[in-house]
């Protein structure tokens, strides 16, 4: 009917006019950023007074036992920094925390959610999650500090690692076993690793050690993170007669693994990589077994060790800003991350540029950062020039100590 067609056409015309008037398209760009040296201009994540840093950590789920204290460490460092004025004494820092549940896909989603409102990421926890986000970090030119010690991160311009890599930990563990640990090249050395990139990092360290020291890895058992029943893997290790086993796991899995081994009366010398331990294990039913057979390889020193200046400061600040925080070496890791990221931010502020490119440039010109003895000094720079620390500390389980670890 012409009547209807006309009105319809009129409606369409009106719409078309509105459309052309609307316009509005294009990116919400993050331009600007450069100001004068010492007073950078506003940019993504920085509004002139507050700097926002992203945190992608498992705050719930099985790995929250690492994520929570680590994030608390980040927070206490920045709380202390803010109490003294902030970065370069002027700019306060705010943390934007997102829960990743240690899942790589969720980490990618949360990254996309917050990347538009932060200057850089001061924590991305997990080897697999960091690897998942890395291509986008490169594309978006954002800097992130991974809470993971894979050697891959050392040569990445977009990542700001701290601490000695897992591979170095593995090599140092084998070194100890062959010298002070009472082992020899003829003993059966095996590995039990989480079945993803995190496990492969430790495995590659052991493989390197095997080549250098001239032994072969007798057996390798893999498991998916979160498995309930480890009887099969323990049986296989026992059946192969393994006398030393290098374990790469997360705390709840490690507890189950040790429990299964204890119940199966299998007691090799366990060397467990640092993320395999949590304070609760020292108070659990497997603690006696762990005291007898398990050594944890990590970095830094015992909680509360007053011989190390950085430790006294950290404990004081923890008591002040997070009084309910229990002793925890993940806390000190997060604390150290805060220190490294602050060094980058201060360099960027002094160069007057807090944009993405500015932060990357600052990280390349950083030089050596010391951590007051809490972890080894790190020489930063462009990826190819970085020198990570290469020393590790061995801990044995001692329920009497704070966090249950004593240095060997």
């Amino acid at each position: 009917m012409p009547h209807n067609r006309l009105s319809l056409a009129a409606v369409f015309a009106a719409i078309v006019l509105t459309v052309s008037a609307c316009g509005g398209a294009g990116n919400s760009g993050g331009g600007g950023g450069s100001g004068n040296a010492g007073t950078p201009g506003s940019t993504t994540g920085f509004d002139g007074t507050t700097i926002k840093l992203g945190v992608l950590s498992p705050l719930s789920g099985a790995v929250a036992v690492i994520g929570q204290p680590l994030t608390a460490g980040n927070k206490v460092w920045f709380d202390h920094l803010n109490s003294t004025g902030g970065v370069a004494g002027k700019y306060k820092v705010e943390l934007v925390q997102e829960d990743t549940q240690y899942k790589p896909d969720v980490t990618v989603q949360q990254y996309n959610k917050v990347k538009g409102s932060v200057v850089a990421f001061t924590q991305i926890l997990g080897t697999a999650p960091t690897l998942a986000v890395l291509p986008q970090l490169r594309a978006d030119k954002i800097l992130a500090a991974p809470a993971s010690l894979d050697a891959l991160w050392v040569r990445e311009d977009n990542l700001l690692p701290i601490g000695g890599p897992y591979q170095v930990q593995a090599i140092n563990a084998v070194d100890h076993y062959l010298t002070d640990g009472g082992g020899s090249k003829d003993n059966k050395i095996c590995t039990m690793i989480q079945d993803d990139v995190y496990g492969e990092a430790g495995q590659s360290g052991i493989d390197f050690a095997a080549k250098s020291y001239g032994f072969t890895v007798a057996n390798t058992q893999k498991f998916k993170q979160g498995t309930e029943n480890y009887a099969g893997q323990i049986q296989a290790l026992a059946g192969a007669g393994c006398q030393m086993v290098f374990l790469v796991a997360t705390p709840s899995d490690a507890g189950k693994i040790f429990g299964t081994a204890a119940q199966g009366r299998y007691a090799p010398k366990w060397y467990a990589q640092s993320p395999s331990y949590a304070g609760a294990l020292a108070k659990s039913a497997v603690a006696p077994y762990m005291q007898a057979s398990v050594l944890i390889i990590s970095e830094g020193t015992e909680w509360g060790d007053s011989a190390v200046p950085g430790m006294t400061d950290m404990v004081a600040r923890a008591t002040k800003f997070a009084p309910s925080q229990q002793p925890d070496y993940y806390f000190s890791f997060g604390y150290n991350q805060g220190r490294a990221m602050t060094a980058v931010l201060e360099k960027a502020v002094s160069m007057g540029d807090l944009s993405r490119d500015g932060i990357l440039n600052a990280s390349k010109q950083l030089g050596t950062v010391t951590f007051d003895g809490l972890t080894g000094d790190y020489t930063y720079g462009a990826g190819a020039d970085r020198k990570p620390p290469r020393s590790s500390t061995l801990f044995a389980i001692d329920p009497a100590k704070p966090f249950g670890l004593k240095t060997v």
Partner: protein
Amino acid sequence: MAKPHRNLTRAYAQDLRLFGSPLAKAGLAAMILVLLMLPMVVQDDFWLSVLIYVGITAVGAIGLNLLTGYCGQISLGHAFFIGAGAYCTAIVGGDLGLPLPLWLLAAAAVGAVLGGLIGPFALRLRGNYLAIVTLGLIFVGEHLWRNLKSVTGGNSGTSVNAAATIGPFDFGKVELAGEVYSRNQGYFWLVWALVALIALLAKNLVRTRPGRALQAVRDRDQAAEVIGVRAGRYKIGAFMVSSAIASVAGALFGSYQQFVSPDEWNLLLSIQYIAIVIVGGLGTIFGSILGAIFVGALPALIDRYSDAIPGVQTSVGGEGFISVFALNQAIFGVLIVLFLVLEPRGLAGIWLRVKTYFKAWPFSY
């Protein structure tokens, strides 16, 4: 000559028409307008990405509604086909670098083949048994994804570099009339255009002969056989079509997120799709989209405004006792229970009731 009343249908074709009444036509125009204009008006990355995920979920939900709502086959294995589509895209679009139409079609083909393999189970099993077998399918699928490391990257996952290009036109970097559009804006158009296309295809399927056959199989498959509907053929066909659509959803998902891992294709995902289909309305195409919007947007809203909800712990050392994820899960469970108890016909049922009320207005009593 007086016009017949708008509700009087005088021909079968008129009955089948999709957008018959002027109101429906205006609605269609409005929807097209929203599709075109929304990314230009809403430029916020967060909301655009929520809508993109909702759109991808809507595609998957349409597939599941075809299988469960129209054909009555309970399938808990939807996540398996979505995962298959994502990995197919990783290979065809990413490694081989082929353009968008090719990797979409490849994903659909892979989905159809897999659906054809699983379909015969439906011939032998029904109801509860089929549900449990498809449950087993998810676990077998998970085992495959974790072990075919060359394809899926194992437990660590794999990045998907499939570019959404058709010839020189790239949805990731759209440039129109001098304006540069962000990746999210381009993908919004791609995803929702596909939603419209697939909804149209599915609607055409269900309002014609195959659709009636599917519904006959759903209601009484042995009786359907008696009147000449080959139940086996349609059951397998339903599986194939639904799996193909699910794989297309997976392909879009992989291409958008640029990273997929085996953790994602789990029982929870399948159950989410079933919940979407129930909340939206079993046996309706429109309901799938409504359900996807409702169930997809709710977690995002909770996530965004979690600071305002009392009792939710959003940061370390913050107050609250329940994490955002746990809250989402609890609300999800409550939603399922509430909808099933109070409104079994779902959101589409509510919509139809409202529409019917106004059809006879002001004499609706």
